[in-house]
């Protein structure tokens, strides 16, 4: 403690400063103390130890900072500790999910998994090729439906609507659509298709329609925000060159915002690609490869995972392994999408600097 009291300089511009080692030292001390208490009263429960350690650490930092550095620095350290705490808390499930999926999915993350369907497979072997292609078909089609509709709606809202009644109504219904439970979207798509072609056991396109219902509002909202961010000066620059409004929108406004729009679309895809319930209802499920969106049920990865887990055969472990491998594949696809999104966004981003 001698170093601490020495560093207290009572000048007007200087203030005491905790030496750099204090915070890690306090953290280590708090961790030990938390563990000790938890061993004594909680039988060594790790979650309890972590929670206790965190609270002890908060108090210790607060007190020492208040004594040495004053109230403002203490508040700063308190806020920092709490934000870091929240960050770690938020990261825990992510890390845990990734770890679980990796460790349990690795067992069947092999060539067979990516080259075989489940046709005529009852025990070991088999794969998710039919589910992977199905997911790509269904979400690809959903994107194809949602992006034009969503983008055009966003263009209307930001460029033409000017807060008129119709624009307000659209915004309201888009917000309502955001809150539609996914199972309702699936039932809607199923009912719609039944109305059009009569009773069926589900097919890929119906799944795409269900996913579009979930995707469109996300695309509309994110694109609208980004179009609004385009400075008005650029629109005026184009108008002053005698460029008509529609060309201004398609050649100036959208290109300026495109990188953000693409990111938004990819986030929307990532959001719906893991939907299970609507696809179960609308696209059905099957063990065979089906590349026709418009006839016969089509398997998708989330449904594959669910089905492997919920209806295992005699050798349960084989089915569970396949479910985990399916989950891992899904995570990998979403990560890949994010990566592609970043690359595309960088490619399209407005050029600045040299």
């Amino acid at each position: 403690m001698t170093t601490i009291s020495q560093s207290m300089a009572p000048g007007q511009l200087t203030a005491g400063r905790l030496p750099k080692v204090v915070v890690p030292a306090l953290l280590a001390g708090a961790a030990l103390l938390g563990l000790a208490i938890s061993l004594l009263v909680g039988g060594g429960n790790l979650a309890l130890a972590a929670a206790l350690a965190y609270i002890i650490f908060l108090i210790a930092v607060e007190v020492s900072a208040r004594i040495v550095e004053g109230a403002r620095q203490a508040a700063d350290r308190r806020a920092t500790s709490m934000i870091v705490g929240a960050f770690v808390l938020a990261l825990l499930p992510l890390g845990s999910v990734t770890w679980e999926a990796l460790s349990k999915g690795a067992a069947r993350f092999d060539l067979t998994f990516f080259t075989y369907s489940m046709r005529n497979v009852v025990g070991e072997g088999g794969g998710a090729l039919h589910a992977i292609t199905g997911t790509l078909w269904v979400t690809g089609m959903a994107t194809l439906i949602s992006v034009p509709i969503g983008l055009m709606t966003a263009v209307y809202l930001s460029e033409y609507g000017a807060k008129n009644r119709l624009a307000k109504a659209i915004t309201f219904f888009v917000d309502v659509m955001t809150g539609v439970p996914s199972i309702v979207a699936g039932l809607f798509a199923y009912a719609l298709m039944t109305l059009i072609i009569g009773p069926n056991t589900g097919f890929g396109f119906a799944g795409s329609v269900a996913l579009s219902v979930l995707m469109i509002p996300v695309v509309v909202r994110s694109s609208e925000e980004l179009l609004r961010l385009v400075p008005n000066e650029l629109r005026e620059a184009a108008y002053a060159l005698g460029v008509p409004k529609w060309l201004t929108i398609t050649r100036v406004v959208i290109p300026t915002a495109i990188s953000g729009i693409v990111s938004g679309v990819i986030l929307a895809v990532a959001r719906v690609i893991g939907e299970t319930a609507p696809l179960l209802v609308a696209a059905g499920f099957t063990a065979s490869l089906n590349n026709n969106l418009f006839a016969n049920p089509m398997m998708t990865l989330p449904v594959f995972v669910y089905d492997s887990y919920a209806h295992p055969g005699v050798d349960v472990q084989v089915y569970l392994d396949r479910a985990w491998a399916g989950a891992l594949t899904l995570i990998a696809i979403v990560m890949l999408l994010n990566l592609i999104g970043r690359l595309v966004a960088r490619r399209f981003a407005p050029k600045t600097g040299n």
Partner: protein
Amino acid sequence: MGKRIEVTDLNVYYGDFRAVEDVSITIEAKSVTAFIGPSGCGKSTFLRTLNRMHEVIPGARVEGEVLLDGENLYGPGVDPVRVRRHIGMVFQRPNPFPTMSIKENVLAGINLNNRRMPGSEKDDLAEQALKGANLWEEVKNRLNKPGASLSGGQQQRLCIARAIAMEPEVLLMDEPASALDPISTLAIEDLMNELKQQYTIVIVTHNMQQAARVSDVTAFFNIAGAGAPGRLIESGPTEKIFSAPDVKATEDYISGRFG
């Protein structure tokens, strides 16, 4: 090129608010006309009505007549898009397109309007426009770099090049040098002297010396008070307005004795 503009009894409204009242003025072809006046007196508003750019602002509307060589810009069937191809505009803040290179920015008027033109002709046009805007020497080796990579003064000259690449008859400039250093300002003033051989130029400025240096005709706008519409107080040859104006308010404003 260079056409003459005659404005008669022009009123401009933002919704119910009348921003400019009863302006009548003649802007001679192939000359520089400067608009001066205190902030908020409607100079920008009036300037925008000369190529119907005010229509971009919701609620803005106009009463009166603007004749471009005798043709009423506000006549029935007149297309504002066509008007703006003949009457170009340069804004106070440089606004190059961030997605385009320097060359693409200059050719934006051609490209965005999907006008077909052989590549070599485009190159020539870009070079001519950049030379016209006094920017060619500075950028000729980096035409494919982004327009936003230029300095503020260079960006403003890029915007002028973009406007003159459309070969307009009239060029409207709203405080084109207000964000620039004295050297860039001088470059733009020299430019105006050259451009008036071909174009009719209207410039808004808060810089009295600039108005005196570059303009042939000066028009003084003023407002009676907050909420009152702006009016054209007087206009005439620049030497006369700056040495012996008819109205006391003009003299007060120019000499700086003005609230």
